[in-house]
């Protein structure tokens, strides 16, 4: 009992002490400026907004519902109608076929039924039983019209067009769908505005005397850009817009980083974002048609080869790697742009995918890119290309053994490179022991960790960090910079968004119209993932440090445009319409 009385007494003393402290504080209050109070309150808002925006964008996109567009039907005579849900449908005995026909004389992968520019064609994949259209044996492929009969080794079907236009199937709404239904994209966008505007003001305040009102103008212009994109998309399409919202959020962080680290480059960066969005829209429109996309692939690969040669001949060396081309009025990194062509080069349509296991051309192109990168001494990017190559090659061939060979070859190559190039060896030497070399080869990593720790969960406020004084803070160490100024939560959300792009790409596979888009989306996802891993883990000493950019977030024009272009591939794989926006034109 006496213990509790004593505790009560202590509490009383404490309260008295607290009041005397407050009285003392009041005397100090006069020295406080408005910007101090602003940061004190606002720093709690950023993590909350970031998490909310993330959740509100991710949940609608992850809704797993059956495919809701039917492009045509295969009718079994006097029996059921099989809906054709993709632009390219494989037919065969294999469980992995889109339309499984479990009859002994049908081959495992017998034929492909593909829809392009309004007409259907059937491809014989070298089946034993052969394919007949209207009782006529086809050689390789043949156009099929509405009402035609297709016979696969005797199994007969009739192709029927959808009743009127592409047909919507009834949506068996899962609880999850209903739950995420309520997230209005407009509100999410408003939160993103709020995040970017409040953050812009914070950076403006942090500059004190040197503050330039132009900075606020940049943020307002960006918000205006986002708003117009949103209004346009909401009027003319009925697709999900959350993917772009997430990218907008990342671009906002990118502007924060640039405004804090290299304020005089912020206008240039905004232009890069505008270009990125333009490329995103243009590429999306170009690859919408499968036939056009296939042709575009060769144009891109040709362009990439030209760039590669140009880079090797007239390229400039910056930060130890010969990976810049200077056009006089602007300079850019060709290898970034080549990533887009690289992903395109790896794609294939279903008939090719199922008939030719041969990916020699792609291997050749990949070899050229990676070889050129080693010559340029840009080993980080070489790793990114190699990882993308592995993913695409596996998507194409499904052959784990080949991938294993490729990996072991690469490891041997890497060992050789590390032993020949001393500066690479020193990166490996510092790896995992950066504190022992805190002021030499572990300099950047330790400063990143110190900055990240100084930020805590909430961050010290935009523009208040010290990591900006370290070389490459806005590029290679950008994770630490975000962590320091905006806090651990915002930094983690930033990386999680990039991770989510990849998860989304995977989740879209099942309902993708064509393998072309599926492979492109996964290739883009692989590049995003590997870049994020090398950038973030390199700067915090979980991997050796490489000069790789974090997609969307690092400072840099070419990197920004490339990120948007790669995102277009993921967007193209998403053919779902928003259930709440039916009736809007496509």
């Amino acid at each position, binding site marked *: 009992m006496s*213990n*509790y009385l*004593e*505790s009560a007494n*202590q*509490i009383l003393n404490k*309260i008295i002490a607290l009041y005397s*402290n407050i009285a*003392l*504080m009041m005397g*100090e209050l006069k*020295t*406080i400026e408005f910007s*101090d109070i602003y940061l*004190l309150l606002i720093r709690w808002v950023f993590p909350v907004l970031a998490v909310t925006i993330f959740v509100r964008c991710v949940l609608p996109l992850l809704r797993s519902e059956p495919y809701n567009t039917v492009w045509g039907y295969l009718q079994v005579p006097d029996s059921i109608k099989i809906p054709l849900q993709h632009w390219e449908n494989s037919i065969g005995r294999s*469980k*992995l*076929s889109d339309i499984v026909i479990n009859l002994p004389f049908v081959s495992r992968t017998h034929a492909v039924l593909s829809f392009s520019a309004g007409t259907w064609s059937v491809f014989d994949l070298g089946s034993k039983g052969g394919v007949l259209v209207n009782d006529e044996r086809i050689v390789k492929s043949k156009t099929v019209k509405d009402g035609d009969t297709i016979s696969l080794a005797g199994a007969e079907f009739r192709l029927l067009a959808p009743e009127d236009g592409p047909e919507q199937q009834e949506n068996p709404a899962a609880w999850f769908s209903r739950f995420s239904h309520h997230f209005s994209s407009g509100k999410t966008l408003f939160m993103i505005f709020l995040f970017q505007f409040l953050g812009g003001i914070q950076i403006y305040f942090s500059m004190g005397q040197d503050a330039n009102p132009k900075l606020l103008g940049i943020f307002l212009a960006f918000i205006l850009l986002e708003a117009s994109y949103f209004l346009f998309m909401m009027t003319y399409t009925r697709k999900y817009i959350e993917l772009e919202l997430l990218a907008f959020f990342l671009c906002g962080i990118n502007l924060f980083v640039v405004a804090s680290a290299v304020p005089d480059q912020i206008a240039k960066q905004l232009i890069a974002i505008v270009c990125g969005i333009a490329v995103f829209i243009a590429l999306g429109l170009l690859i919408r048609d499968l036939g056009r996309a296939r042709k575009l692939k060769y144009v891109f690969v040709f362009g990439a080869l030209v760039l590669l040669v140009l880079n090797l001949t007239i390229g400039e060396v910056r930060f130890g790697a010969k990976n810049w081309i200077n056009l006089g009025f602007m300079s850019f990194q060709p290898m970034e742009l080549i990533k887009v062509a690289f992903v395109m080069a790896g794609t294939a349509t279903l008939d090719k995918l199922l008939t030719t296991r041969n990916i020699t051309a792609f291997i050749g192109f990949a070899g050229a890119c990676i070889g050129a990168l080693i010559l340029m001494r840009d080993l980080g990017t070489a790793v990114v290309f190699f*990882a993308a190559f592995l*993913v695409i090659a596996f*998507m194409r061939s*499904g052959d784990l053994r080949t991938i294993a060979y490729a990996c072991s070859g690469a490891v041997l190559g890497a060992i050789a490179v590390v032993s020949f190039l001393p500066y690479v060896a020193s990166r490996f030497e510092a790896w995992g022991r950066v504190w022992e070399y*805190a*002021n030499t080869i572990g300099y950047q990593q*330790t*400063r990143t960790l*110190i900055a*990240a*720790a*100084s930020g*805590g*969960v*909430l*961050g*010290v406020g935009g523009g*208040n960090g*010290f990591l900006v004084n370290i070389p490459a803070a806005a590029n290679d160490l950008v994770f630490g910079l975000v962590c*320091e100024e905006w*806090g*651990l939560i915002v930094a*983690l959300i930033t990386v999680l968004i990039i*991770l989510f792009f*990849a*998860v989304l*790409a*995977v989740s879209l*596979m*099942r*309902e*993708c119209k064509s*393998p072309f888009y*599926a492979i492109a989306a*996964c290739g883009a996802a*692989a590049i995003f*993932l590997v870049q*994020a*891993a090398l950038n*973030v*883990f390199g700067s915090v000493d*979980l991997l050796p440090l490489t000069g790789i950019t974090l997609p969307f977030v690092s400072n840099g024009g070419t990197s920004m445009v490339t990120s948007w272009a790669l995102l277009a591939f993921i967007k193209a794989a998403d053919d779902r319409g928003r259930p709440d926006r039916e009736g809007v034109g496509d």
Partner: protein
Amino acid sequence: MKLLTRRALVVLVLSIIILLGLVIFTIGYIRDASTWVTHASNRHLYTNAQLMETGTIYDRKGEILFQTRDGAKKYHDNKTVRTAVLHTIGDTNDNIATGAQVAFKEKLTGWNIVSGAYRFNQRLSHFKNDLHLTLDADVCMTAYNALKGRKGTVGVYNYKTGEILCMVSSPSFDPENPPDVQADPVKFEGVYINRLLSATYTPGSAFKLVTAAAAIDNLEDIDTRIYHCDGKTNIDGVMVTCPTPHGDVSFEQALAHSCNVAFAEAILSLGASNLQDYSDMAGFNSSLMVDGIRTAAGKVNVSDAAGGDLAWAGIGQYDNTANPLCFMAYVGSIANEGVSVSPGILKGNIFSALIKPVTGKKRILSEETAEKLGNMMRKNVIDVYGEGNYQGLKLCAKSGTAQVGEDKAPHAWFVGYMDREDCPLAFVVVVENGGSGSKVAGPVAEKVLRSAVNSMN
């Protein structure tokens, strides 16, 4: 598309690996961010490798013991106080690992994992980062002076609340004029060690308080039993001796006169496992946490001891060692009706005041045992150490004169407590190679306790 759906899982696997990496980073962050942030290159906290600003460390009466302003460290104005509290506050180069400057670095710099290095306002933040100690600068100064430059330690704490009033370790130095320690290795032997927290000594007869507790609980005839002492006894070829023969003594008198022969007999009837249990219970073989600072652990291991070795172990010799603070906490539990209150040096806040009555307490002895033992310790003072020497303190105590080798003077121990409602203080004094416990360490305790009583009233 089923085919590609399956193949696309490689991308998912890659995502999961990266997610795992993020988790690993976050765990590392939570664990190590407090270390990363204290790197001297961190400009949020340091200029020219010196902390820019820290909170102020106050003693219990509001005396400023330490502060950093504009990169300069400032200690107490009085040189003797600075020297006396050196081991609690820590030195400028952080050589004293248990000093507040190291142990409470996070609190003093104002960094925490949520807010990071952010401060609302440099001047206002001081209040938040201040550290209020339970230490009394005057008592510490008295203790340091009473040690007269001899090596050793003095600790005093409130056995009801756990607040440490006095924590002094000698040798010490003035942190504003640090000496060249290397130049005089004998004088500055272990100068960076806080002996109260981090040293262990042979306890000698002070350890009889542990043996006595075991005897009171386990020997039925302990109240009536009369032991006979001829000044020595031979146990399986090992001699156990007393300085002078004590003749016929009761157990109570045996403790008061510290009769080794009588205790040897009691220990042999107790057995090794009993002694081990009571030693462990009294806090040997484990360390205490003093507001997050880990103390050294004393050691008693009698699993292999038998006969004469066991007897010597029970009277605090053999290879027993004791940490002064842990032993003081054991004595405090005798004073506090068998309940040990964990010692601390930070003044509590509202939250800790609420939870401490529940979490910080542990019953070590039964109430009767504690009372019996306490009465015997009171008798020690009245019958042997001289009530006149400790007039008015209502002192209960036990001395120890720990043999540490043929050619060295023994360590002088004096432990005990005041049985006063207004000053519930327990104490420990160790003077290294000081000689007789009651004659050397006793007067030090007396001076310190009087100073503490003055300070509390």
